[in-house]
């Protein structure tokens, strides 16, 4: 079972990398970019039948730091 975990910074948490990329996009001449936030994608291949609870626990215990990050779990096949 293929799982994709999307980890993103919580709203309100300053993202210096996103800000630098935002400036770089403006420097390239792209107009109308309101905001840039950088996150992380983790792709997992887990045994069929792995429970949602186990996936959630993986995210809470390691894949995301819930002090600063949110996560979303997607089943991709």
């Amino acid at each position: 079972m293929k799982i994709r975990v999307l980890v993103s910074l919580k709203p309100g948490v300053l993202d210096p990398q996103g800000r630098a990329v935002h400036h770089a996009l403006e420097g390239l001449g792209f107009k109308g970019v309101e905001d840039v936030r950088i996150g992380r994608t983790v792709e997992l291949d887990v045994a069929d039948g792995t429970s949602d609870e186990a996936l959630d626990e993986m995210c809470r215990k390691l894949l995301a730091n819930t002090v600063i990050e949110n996560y979303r779990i997607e089943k991709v096949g």
Partner: protein
Amino acid sequence: MSFRAAVITFPGSNCDRDMAVAIEQVSSSAPLRVWHGDADLPERLDFIALPGGFSYGDYLRSGAMAANSPVMRSVKAAADRGVPVLGVCNGFQVLTEAGLLPGALMRNASQHFICRTVPLRVENAQSLFTSGYEAGETINIPVAHHDGNYFADDETLDRIEGEGGVAFRYAENCNGSRRDIAGVLNAAGNVLGMMPHPERAIEPAHGNTDGRKLFEAAIKALA
């Protein structure tokens, strides 16, 4: 009485020797060296130090992998029993990732690695680590980090401040840390995490000796 300290080494730690040398110079006892894969710590420890470096190459997040290494379960248990635990730089990141200290350390606001000596204001001079300083005193301690930007939400910051949990603040905020926080104590006061490196300010050859009092205080607290 000898001071029985342990310095933990993770793969990628690179300030473990500096930390061990500093502890030995100040305490006259060589600390025990513990490898991250050891499930058990030596018994009857007086002090545990988590050194700086780039444990596990900063994979995933700084300190995230080390926080889940076998030895950290024993470090948590020792901290719960009241054993003093000092985490410096990557050691601070490991302590936050392990949940032993509140908050998180993010990429510096400037995006740059910072390596220089910075002035710190001592906020809490009552802890076992800081009792050698005067509250409000300014000390100079080197920093060398890329991910030292301290973050916690307002509610957590208010709680930390209310508990006297801010040990040190940057007199000049060098990395974007919220409320200028450079070092944090847990509620019980026996766990300190700080980005600046007190072990690099021990002897005159280092340029200044402002870090020495931190180790002296911890040794005195034991006696």
